[in-house]
């Protein structure tokens, strides 16, 4: 069943990843320009995971995400302008400004409610899997969550239920703890299990660990999982391990080590400074660009051309979001019931 990552799919994943990266860089810029003011979380450093998982999904598969949702939502094709507008609390945002960064979601791109309560999406996605199983069309529910979500009781309860009832759910645990800071910053998860996959495995859930910065490896693992899921053989758990982007180590995201320079994918001399190690070894976007050039899927010029196109889309999205009005204050009391 396992399909090789062909040229078209590789290009599609690469563009999704680049959209995620440039989107997040734009979010930081908008925050620094004071277009919004709330606490927020970025997906930088994890793009290979989201990009490859989403590539495998069909239109009617469902996704649920967390407080670190931007990459998933825009990676699945949600309108960039409406996504930025939501993060800025504007009327034209996907949720009319009611959700913001924490609850960004787009039903038309296959997302249900985005919970910002750690672990809750695991239960909600398991419920979505039950509905999809009932509908009987072979669709799959995907839960994206961080490693600390496994510290919550709801994770165990939901995975047990999914295993008992053979629900078509793909648990994508994005372990971004390696490289996290200590007390005073966003710390790593604290889980007594030696391997995170020991937890689902104890419930009989098929589980894999994969390098979350390697788009090809993630794609391979998810392809295999999907075949099993669509056959109704029960849940699958994939732990995608990434090294935390230095900008997500402080409590408030910072654009260190600066906006991504795509020429670093082939020009090592440009990689300097305190965070050179992360850029060289752990940046999934640069890594995939390097791989695609080595595989002669893309040339350096084509990488820069795709990047230019993505940046142009983001400038358009930015203009749309900034032009979008704030919601009318008195509309605050609307929208409580369907």
């Amino acid at each position, binding site marked *: 069943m396992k399909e090789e990552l062909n040229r078209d799919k590789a290009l599609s994943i690469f563009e999704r990843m680049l959209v995620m990266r440039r989107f997040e860089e734009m979010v930081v810029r908008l925050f620094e320009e004071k277009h919004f003011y709330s606490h927020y979380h970025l997906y930088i450093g994890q793009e290979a995971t989201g990009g490859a998982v989403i590539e495998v999904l069909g239109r009617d598969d469902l996704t649920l995400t967390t407080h670190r949702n931007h990459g998933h939502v825009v990676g699945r094709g949600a309108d960039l302008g409406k996504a930025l507008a939501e993060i800025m609390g504007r009327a034209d945002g996907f*949720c009319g400004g009611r959700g*913001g960064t924490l609850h960004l979601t787009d039903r038309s791109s296959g997302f249900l409610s985005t919970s910002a309560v750690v672990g809750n999406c695991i239960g909600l996605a398991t419920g979505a899997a039950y509905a999809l199983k009932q509908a009987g069309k072979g669709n799959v529910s995907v839960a994206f969550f961080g490693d*600390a979500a496994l510290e919550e009781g709801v994770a165990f309860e939901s995975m047990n239920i999914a295993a008992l009832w053979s629900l078509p759910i793909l648990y994508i645990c994005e372990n971004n703890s390696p490289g996290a800071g200590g*007390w005073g910053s966003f710390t790593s998860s604290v889980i007594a299990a030696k391997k995170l996959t020991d937890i689902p495995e104890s419930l009989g859930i098929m589980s894999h660990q994969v390098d979350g910065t390697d788009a090809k490896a993630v794609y391979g693992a998810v392809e295999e999982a999907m075949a099993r899921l669509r056959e109704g053989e029960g849940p699958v758990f994939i732990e995608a391990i990434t090294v935390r982007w230095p900008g997500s180590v402080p409590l408030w995201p910072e654009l260190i080590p600066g906006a991504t320079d795509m020429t670093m994918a082939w020009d090592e001399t440009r990689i300097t400074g305190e965070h050179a190690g992360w850029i060289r070894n752990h940046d999934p976007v640069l890594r995939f660009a390097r791989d695609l050039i080595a595989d002669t899927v893309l040339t350096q010029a084509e990488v820069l051309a795709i990047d230019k196109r993505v940046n142009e889309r983001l400038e358009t999205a930015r203009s749309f979001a900034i032009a979008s009005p*704030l919601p009318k204050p008195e509309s605050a*009391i609307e929208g*409580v019931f369907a």
Partner: protein
Amino acid sequence: MTEMNYAEALVDGLYISMDSDPRVSLIGRYVLGLSPLRFLMERVRDAFEDRILDPPVSEAGIASLGVGAAMAGARPFVDIATASFVFEAWPQVVNEAANAYHMSGGQFTVPVVFHMLHGLRGGGSAQHSHSPQAMLWNCPGLEIVLPSSPRDVKGLIRTAVKSNNPTIFIDHSKLFTLKGDVPEGDYEIPFGQAEIKREGGDVTVVATSLLVQKALEAANALSKEGIEVEVVDPRTIVPLDKEAILRSVAKTGRLVVVDECNLSCGVASEIAAIVAEHAFGSLKAPILRVARPDVPVPFSAPLEEYITPTTEKITAAVRRGLG
């Protein structure tokens, strides 16, 4: 007296609590949330390293650990962090901690403190902005503390840690930088003792937590127009100093209750009901409530502002109450 901010006073109270009783443990990472002020806690962390646990993101786990440890003789101070996360620990707080003393026929006590940060904080959106004090008030067996000043937070935290009952200690992060005079050394503020934060003869305003400060701002503004507002701060809603509220209403004949909970079944609703029941004869005008409308908290700034109980809304309610 020393001038310090609310966060410093809170940390001071916690430090003294841990220093004076080796049974006290702190279960929680920050206590002061994610604000830059969280580093004030380093003083406590350095001094009592062996009694501080940085837990996983496991609210149900740490809350039940707190309840169990308290029943077995420890005195845990459990930091739930954002008050909205108490819902992850709901069974442990409302169905275990609140009930254990009563349903055991008083065989043991549950001296646990659950600390949390409530309220609208700017962009917290629907899942990080709750004020769960009214919901918790509906669970007999829990003491509920809502400090409003540096002096109060230090004295109340001492009483909370010494209490033999499960105590919900609710701070508001927007109070953290508020400065005020705080007595040096150790002191306690008893539960169930309201403080008249400002005297006045025209209208009584009852408020808690951050909204005491907003009520004082409103009172100062109205004073310039010759309207004298009496601001009553219950400081604890369980136990509640009903007498202080009724005495003030007997004097002024008018009541505005200010509350950050949602309007329906909120703290303001209960206080209004108590006054209507016990002081109907003193009232010269209907009781008014200033609270959040019954809507989940929207993210967007103008929407959040629209539902926030503000100084201006309190001022307007006082004027309306005066007819």
